[in-house]
């Protein structure tokens, strides 16, 4: 730090500037694209989360909601300068509300090549049964 500096014209310090940048970065969250479908056993959610490895993936569910989160980690040389960017964040997050017939304790999750697949089973009593219609 220079020992004499006019306070009124002082540039923001490096630390201040960085923390502002960081705060801005953290505001931007990517919503992964998802496919969601239901069959008689349960609901399947598939989410595209390219760049996320198993270690940086976080899926948590309680009775009411399912949250998927992940951080992008890719190899890149230090001091890289961006020439072009479609992707403006390294963080994915998306939340879904679950309904009571689902069993969040038994969710199975699998991550392969950046695609997260989750199976959320339905409670047995909610699996549709065929109802016979009798005539006569």
């Amino acid at each position, binding site marked *: 730090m220079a020992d004499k500096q006019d306070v009124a014209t002082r540039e923001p310090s490096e630390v201040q500037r960085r923390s502002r940048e960081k705060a801005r970065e953290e505001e931007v969250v990517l919503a992964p694209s998802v496919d969601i479908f239901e069959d008689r056993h349960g609901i399947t959610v598939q989410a595209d989360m390219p760049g996320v490895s198993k270690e940086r993936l976080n899926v948590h569910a309680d009775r009411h909601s399912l949250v998927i989160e992940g951080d992008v980690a*890719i190899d890149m040389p230090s001091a890289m300068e*961006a020439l072009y960017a479609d992707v403006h964040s390294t963080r994915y997050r998306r939340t879904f509300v679950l309904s009571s017939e689902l069993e969040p304790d038994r969710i199975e999750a699998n991550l392969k090549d950046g695609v997260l697949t989750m199976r959320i089973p339905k409670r047995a009593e909610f699996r549709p049964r065929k109802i016979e219609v009798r005539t006569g």
Partner: protein
Amino acid sequence: MFGSLFSSFDTHLFDGLRRAEDDMDQVFGSAPWPAGIRSVRRGTFPPINVGSTPEQVDVYMFAAGLDPKSLELSIQENLLSVSGSRKIEVNEDAEYYRRERFDGDFRRVISLPDDVDPERVEARYRDGVLQITVQRRESARPRQIVVN
């Protein structure tokens, strides 16, 4: 660490511009200012980031769930093109609520800086990201000049 690639100094400014551009696209069919001749509509699959150092240029394609064998990469001078396909299996017995994930063939053409060396390209696919590294020609790198 990722700051440099994911939010360059002008990113936030451009972000606003791009969103405006998107709206323009929808309303008028095109933005009133000139766009890159090979630029594509925002949201085109797969999204890409391009970063550079004095030694190399790196292209990152965010394309999860690809079969690397389906990819075709070619480079002619500084023009890199990548095509491939992603087939999403449809579960015929299920009822779909959302189908947001890209399904089908894609192709993107990226014009890289003029000084890249098309003979020295490497590509690898990991965690759903295709990373293509192209070295730059030695002659184009900044050189230290000693003053005697």
